[in-house]
């Protein structure tokens, strides 16, 4: 897959403070998560890619275009949903999105049409003529998403899109992001400190800490690997005999307390064979998880590394 973003020794300093330290990475996923604690440099990275901050050294490329030399072209490919409230409160929702679409280069009639579409798409069709200042927090978030997609960008930056949303609104926002991702027309960069949001929406994760890349993992590969990794909880029979029977089938096993057993299945072995063996051994399988390292595990490991590098 073609790289979406290439970070090539990207360094950003504000005065004497170094915010991003010579970042090097190639991000290729359809949906890329940016994780990190507060002050890790997530927003600075997004702002730099948007051209708001000039790199002190190094550069970055978006779809192969250098952000230093082709800033305008790069921005024509982007949609941006900022973290903070960003709107013009005295404007109606649809007029605001239309303005933003026109500034992105859409002719007025197309901009108006797409502003209406975007508002219906994010579920604000009924309130699109109301002033933005009267919107609830969830509606403002959705309006921000509408302005970010109205002009049909190739890459969408979402900075904390679920900030301040109640559970139903959050779910709706996550569903929208997943829907946009699954259509495959545009790539996503999702910056969040909520691991669950990233886990649900992203297939690649870049974890930042103190301006360094603390970890970079392909969640899709992790998920694939997890399919061969099982954690089961058993009851009845003799655990040792069951584990031996599984080893005979080619599994790696580790026995835990209270009937817990960790297994790595060999290629070709199906889960239903495991149930068959359990039945033969008179063992009840009470719980079965396909799980190795969760994103939380990966994140915590990255945070434990002293210098922010794994």
């Amino acid at each position, binding site marked *: 897959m073609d790289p979406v973003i290439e970070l090539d020794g990207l360094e950003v300093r*504000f*005065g004497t*403070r170094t915010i991003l330290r010579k970042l090097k990475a190639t991000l290729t996923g359809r949906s890329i998560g940016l994780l990190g604690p507060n002050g890790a440099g997530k*927003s600075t990275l997004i*702002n730099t890619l*948007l*051209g*708001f*901050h000039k790199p002190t050294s190094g550069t970055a490329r978006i779809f192969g275009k250098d952000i230093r030399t082709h800033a*305008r*072209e790069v*921005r*024509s490919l*982007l*949609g*941006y949903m*900022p973290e*903070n*409230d*960003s*709107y*013009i*409160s*005295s404007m109606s929702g649809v*007029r605001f999105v239309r*303005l*933003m679409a*026109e*500034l*992105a*280069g*859409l*002719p007025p009639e*197309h901009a108006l049409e*797409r502003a*209406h*579409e975007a508002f*219906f*798409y994010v579920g604000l*069709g009924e309130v699109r003529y109301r002033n933005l200042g009267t919107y609830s927090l969830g509606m403002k978030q959705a309006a921000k998403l509408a*302005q970010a*997609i109205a*002009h*049909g960008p*190739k890459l969408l*930056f979402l900075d904390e899109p679920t900030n301040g949303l109640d559970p139903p609104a959050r779910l709706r926002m996550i569903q929208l992001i997943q*829907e*946009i991702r699954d*259509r495959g*027309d*545009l790539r996503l960069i999702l910056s969040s400190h909520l691991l669950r949001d990233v886990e649900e929406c992203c297939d690649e994760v870049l974890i930042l800490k103190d301006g360094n890349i603390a970890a970079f993992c392909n969640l899709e590969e992790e998920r694939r690997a997890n399919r061969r990794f099982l954690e089961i909880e058993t009851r009845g029979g003799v655990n040792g005999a069951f584990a031996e029977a599984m080893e005979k089938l080619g599994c790696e096993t580790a026995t835990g307390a209270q009937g817990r057993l960790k297994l790595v299945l060999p290629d070709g072995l199906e889960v239903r064979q495991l149930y068959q063996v359990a039945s033969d051994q008179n063992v009840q399988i009470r719980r079965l998880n396909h799980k190795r390292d969760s994103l939380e595990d990966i994140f915590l490991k990255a945070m434990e590394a002293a210098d922010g590098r794994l």
Partner: protein
Amino acid sequence: MAVYKKTYRPYDGALTPSATRFLVIPRFAFEDMRKSRFLTIFFLASFIYPLICSLFIYVKHNASALNLLGVANANNLISINTTFFLNFLGWQSMLALFLAAFTGPGQVSPDLANNALSLYLARPFSRVEYVLGKMWILIVLMSLMTWVPGLLLFLLEAYLQEGWTWMHDNSSLASGMFFGSWIWILILALLALALSAWVKWKPAAGALMFGVFFVAAGFGAAINGVQRTKWGHLFNISALIGSVWVQLFGADPQVNNGGAFFRMPADERLPLWCCWTALGGLCLVCLYMLARKIRGAEVIR
């Protein structure tokens, strides 16, 4: 695509030329301004003086009209000359100052107060285009109040004089009107935007705009009085621009010391290069103020 489908789709249609994209901002702003009754009335009222001036010009050249009014020799009293056009520009420029003070503060401050700048600048749209777009609103309105009616009056006078000779002989009036207005417009627009960028509360920004002109002029006069000098006029923007107009109109400084409201006392005139430098410096300060504030993201060092 119909809205009922409610799905995302990419855009692959034509784009507008990037060179004229900044005009989107004034188009939206004018739509908003039309809703303000006060501004509409004020703007229309600003054409009363040009209408009166055009009447003067017409009457001066129309003997029957003068006879009708019973003032057959009044045409000797009406002089369409440098003073007439300088005063016209002075009046209209003062109205332009009021317009800038009313409309200018509402340009940048709402975008800053609502953090909307990041949305503007995340698009293929630069800071310069943003400022140009915002300035364009003021430039168009103030042009319609100053040099456009000024040049129309000039053409009317030229037409009634029945010949190119007058037009040719007085071309400095037209060029002075045009360039003098533009300088004033640029100063007002830059100052209004700079104050709007730094003072987020609109009434305060408007008041500050008047303050820069009138309070600073008073401060300059106080310096002149106390120090027995003339350099206090450097704080008096209207006096500075008045001196520049006199030069641009090609007027005799002994006879004309500026337009209405924009005069520098004849015996306290500053060297012209000082006036130009002070006005240039003011513009640079405004540009610096705008450059500091018009950013996609605030940098906390």
